[in-house]
């Protein structure tokens, strides 16, 4: 549970770079509306689907492809780290 919470926090922190104070509300909406679960229960398995939805949503906010790609790349990095962490936990 603590791990899922920190994942949510990290996603919000990355989103904050682009959406400022609207970041947490934006992520909460994406998780609630598209993944149909409370934002704090977000897990590494949900990330890939969430990123797809975030990409769609951010494309509605700006036409600047560079920003969208940069944002998604940062979220992808989070996915890779989360996967690596979960592999490490399984090996143990």
């Amino acid at each position, binding site marked *: 549970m603590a791990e899922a919470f920190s994942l949510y926090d990290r996603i919000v922190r990355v989103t904050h770079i*682009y959406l400022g104070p*609207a970041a947490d509300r934006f992520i909460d909406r994406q998780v609630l509306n598209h993944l149909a679960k409370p934002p704090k229960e977000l897990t590494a398995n949900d990330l890939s689907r969430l990123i797809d939805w975030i990409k769609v949503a951010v494309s*509605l906010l700006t036409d600047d492809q560079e920003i969208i790609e940069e944002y998604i790349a940062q979220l992808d990095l989070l996915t890779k780290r989360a996967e690596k962490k979960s592999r490490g936990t399984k090996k143990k």
Partner: protein
Amino acid sequence: MNKLPRTLVAFTLITLFYLVLSIALPPNSATIQSYHLSVTEYRVLALLVGIPLVAVWFASFYGYARLDEYVASIQRTQEGRAFALIARGLRYLAWGLPIISIVTTILGGIVHSHNSFANTAFIIAHYLPVIIAIAAFWQVGNGSRLLTEIAKVRPTNSATRTMFASFTLLGVFFTYVSIRTAQSATDPYHLPMWLILLTLIVPYLYAWFMGLFASYEIVLYSQRSRGFLYSRSLRDMATGIIVTIVTSVLFQYTQSDTTRLRRISFSWVFLGIYLLLMLYASGFLLIGHGAKQLQKMEEV
């Protein structure tokens, strides 16, 4: 939630009312005498000024309604309260324009048939913009103050000193201009000097300082805000608010300096009015654009 249609209905009704008044009421005799116009010329010019005026009203109603919608979507947040106060102040400014136009048109009509009412009409026409300016900038100032508290920013020492100097200069110059206007043959105030100083000049300066200081606080907040897309939209909205405040101060200033205005050729006055109106409208349109972008972030 959607306040835009309601505001547009209000705008349509108020515009229709103003147009009916402009046609039905007798023309302003002071303007006719000042610029040597015939009644027909006056009506044509009133229409020429009236059309862009209505366009400005539309822009201002659109701008504040968009901001209201954005405020409704963030009402539970910290910034929500601050922006709600700013939106209320801008609503007063937006409604202020048509209200002043309608009231002065009605007063002009009354003066035409009851000349003894002229002094009272002049006094009302001078106090109304002051009351609206104080009410509007008071709210905007409260909102901008909250924003600086949220962002934990305060004006720099050099900025504060520059503002003090500019405000003092503006204050002294405005007082000089107003006193000269009051002492001229065409004194528009019809009031004793002490009353002009205490109830017109001081409240005007108070309102302007509040408005201009609020503009600076909004700039501080938008500079401190994080989020690439957020701060871009916020910058548009903040620029719009600042343009609106500065233009409304300029508007009120020009209305007080009627002696100098009468010396300038009519076409230059006309051009100046159009330029100010365009600036005022573009300020509100920028507010509307920025608020729309910010609201989108709360919806997708």
